[in-house]
């Protein structure tokens, strides 16, 4: 699932998942097993779990372009 930013609610059941994303990302990047992190966060249903496992955020990529164009604009003035 490719998205600008991680979704706030699970697409299937509607449960709030957005607030748990940053902790999940941080811990998985540190090398913890995703399944264990999801268990710790209390994400039980597989609909919510796949939201975490399959998420790809691209906002940082967009922001990169944004920064380049903004620098250009400011240099004109």
């Amino acid at each position, binding site marked *: 699932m490719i998205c600008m930013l991680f979704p706030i609610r699970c697409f299937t059941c*509607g449960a709030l998942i*957005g*607030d748990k994303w940053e902790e999940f990302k941080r811990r998985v990047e540190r090398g913890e097993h995703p399944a264990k992190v999801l268990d710790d966060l209390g994400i039980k249903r597989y609909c919510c779990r796949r939201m975490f496992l399959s998420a790809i955020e691209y906002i940082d990529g967009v922001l990169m372009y*944004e920064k380049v164009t903004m620098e250009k604009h400011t240099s004109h003035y």
Partner: protein
Amino acid sequence: MPVEVKVLEKRNNYVKFIISGVPVAFVNSLRRTIIAEVPVMAIDEVVILDNTSVMYDEVLAHRLALIPLKTDLESYVLPEECVCGGIGCSRCQVKLVLDVEAKDGDLMVYSGHLKSEDPAIVPVSDKIPIVKLAKGQRIVLEAYARLGRGRDHAKWQPGLAAYKYMPKIVIDESKCNGCGVCVQNCPRNVLEIKDGKVTVSKLLDCNLCRYCEIVCPTKAIRVEHEDSTYVFFVESFGQLDVKTLVLKALEVLDQKCVKFLEECEHAIEEFKKE
């Protein structure tokens, strides 16, 4: 058969209970009422004053709407039932303001940045990311939260509710040879071997898949379900606590039944007149 409720598990936003002595239609209507009829707060209208972020106004508004808000059902009414006629007054809507600017470097905007005019109506969690801003980007907006029902939009869904029939596993002791094939194959580890015979150890974990029936070489096991006994669970998304959620659902259901009766009586009266 008398109606009985036995609570199995109760946590912050979760309750699991066994309900017996009611028809399946009742449990299902309770489930549907919880999911789609109990009013909760959600952002319904957003006035965007400034948005230089990378996210389009409508995407931003959609993300804001999905943030669950703690709800106070005593102080607020549904817009359509309000004295103002749904235009928007202090009885039926709450204003939340978001005013953020990334002054030095990237800034993640969280639900905690939303400032509500009513301290009782705030996001369930302060850590929900809304959008990320690059240096110099700015968002200024006013959001109006209103009560609404899950049947109109998923943002107003207060929680989840589901039930299953109470499982009943019948083992024919004369046929069971204690081979243990069912124990190995059960996906939920419901069964175990005791003194050379199969016994049920975790009945509530059974999801009635009947795989044990299929694999049993002697056809000694049979999976059935109890009549009018159900395992019911309710999970709240945080807007209301589970107790209020279930009680409010029952209240809504009760009102619907009363309304239905009134309509029926009215129809009979009309019929008699003709």
